[in-house]
């Protein structure tokens, strides 16, 4: 008897499970597709919809770079090349080269973490494809600039203050070791 009942059960299971499956797929006909039709049928640029912490292509704000080389040391893949030396006449630190090879960069964020001013930071840019490898080495220094000296009190230069603010806001996102700053989340 079990062979016959197995036969009938097989048919019944097949019909009912396929019926349920077809009902699920039929319900999908009436749902909005999840696709985002990038890049032309979007109300806002994608780059503006990404979260602030998004680890896109790196950018350096040279106005607030102190030349401390913390990012170069932290990078595990050696894609940052910085040349900073003391100018013999003015006795100030001079940045003469700051190259980031975004082809090598693995977008890990280890360089922006130790930066004291938030000068090197990730943007929400991710469209970096280009026709030549040379263009993938971003050279941020055109003429040698002075390294930034952080002041003891708040920054007074009106040109630099907003840049510094943005950099410090970016740095605030990172967890402070040992928890010197209060956590942003309310405990349950």
């Amino acid at each position, binding site marked *: 008897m079990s062979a016959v009942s197995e036969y009938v059960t097989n048919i019944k299971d097949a019909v009912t499970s396929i019926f349920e499956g077809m009902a699920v797929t039929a319900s999908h006909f009436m749902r909005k597709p999840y696709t985002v039709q990038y890049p032309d049928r979007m109300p806002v640029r994608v780059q503006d919809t990404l979260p602030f912490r998004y680890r896109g292509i790196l950018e350096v704000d040279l106005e607030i770079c102190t030349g401390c080389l913390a990012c170069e040391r932290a990078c595990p*893949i050696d894609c940052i090349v910085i040349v900073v030396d003391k100018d013999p006449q003015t006795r100030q630190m001079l940045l003469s080269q700051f190259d980031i090879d975004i082809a090598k960069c693995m977008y890990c964020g280890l360089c922006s973490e130790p930066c004291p001013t938030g000068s090197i930071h990730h943007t929400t840019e991710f469209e970096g494809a280009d026709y030549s490898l040379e263009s993938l080495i971003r050279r941020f220094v055109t003429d040698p600039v002075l390294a930034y000296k952080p002041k003891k009190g708040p920054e007074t230069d009106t040109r630099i203050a907003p840049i510094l603010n943005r950099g410090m806001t970016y740095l605030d996102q990172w967890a402070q*070791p040992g928890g010197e700053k209060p*956590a942003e*989340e309310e405990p349950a």
Partner: protein
Amino acid sequence: MSTLHTEEMTLNMGPQHPSTHGVLRFVVRADGEVMREAIPDVGYLHRSIEKIAEKVGYHGFMPYTDRVDYVCAMFTNQGWGMACEKLAGIEVPHRGEYCRVIAAEFNRIASHLLSVGAMAMDIGAVTPFTHAIREREMINDLIEELCGARLTFNYMRIGGVAWDLPPGWREKALAYLDHFDPILEEYNALISWNKIYIERLANVGVITPAEAVNYNLVGPNLRACGIKWDIRKDIPYSVYPEFEFDVPIGDGHWGKLGDSMDRYVVRIREMAESSKILRQALQKIPGGPVLAKVARNFKPPAGECQIRLESGRGDMGWYLVSDGSGYPWRVHVRTGSFAAMGIIQKLSAGLMIADLVTLIASLDVIAPEIDR
């Protein structure tokens, strides 16, 4: 009548193939549809990650651990963090542990979604894959807000995690879990209990419990044979003892115990369990710091340590030897997929070629994890 002279075919399911989960190669000796043997050939994805650790140092190795298993990147991050912490005796703050568990369990759901989706696609059903990927995209959006990346997270650091939960994230995560539970039921109705699917998976690639233990299988592959072994419960680490959850095991309901259907259903049930853990963690998360104080030039004392954790593929082991300098002496990762490759050759005798694809998919083999 004398017997007909037939020959065996030697086929090559080569490294470029639509269904071998990554870059794998199988040399298949088949007699028509039925296989005599399928010999796996690994190594196409070897990137010397363990050697790279000796060059980049402790902090710098964290992004490389993402690439060991890119589908379960949070677990590999956690493994490296735990190994260094154990060696140096660093304690992770309580809130940091909670953040780790939350990120890890979300990653487990994402990894299992990919696994069951890809398995359905290999069997021939094309829609469950896109549905699973859609759900995974929503998890990726959440994690993108949390740590800035969608696949190679680099979220954890030695001593905790790199970013705290952003404001409003907890509500979004709970809303996602409310959305996810009915979707999992719908997914089951679409494919898991489908008669054709059950017929394809039941009794295929049966692994007995003794074989599973002998071949070093871990994770859902092991639990599907009825052995209740989960590192989160048996060798507890992090804050898992504070949560209540079940460990699903296979029971041979649809075929023999330890067949592909058991492995598949264990993964589906594990997703539901992860959802439970996540709800508890998001409710109970305490305040405080998330990152312990660790020196920038981290030099753990000389010695060796080994940790184990339950990743999406199973028991992942991290072995670290330090010589007291700022660079590790030796790092080794033991992954579940490598052991699973070993058992394929034994199981493939007598299977059909279509079943080989099912077997590989059900063992949830991820190629970068095999070769590192």
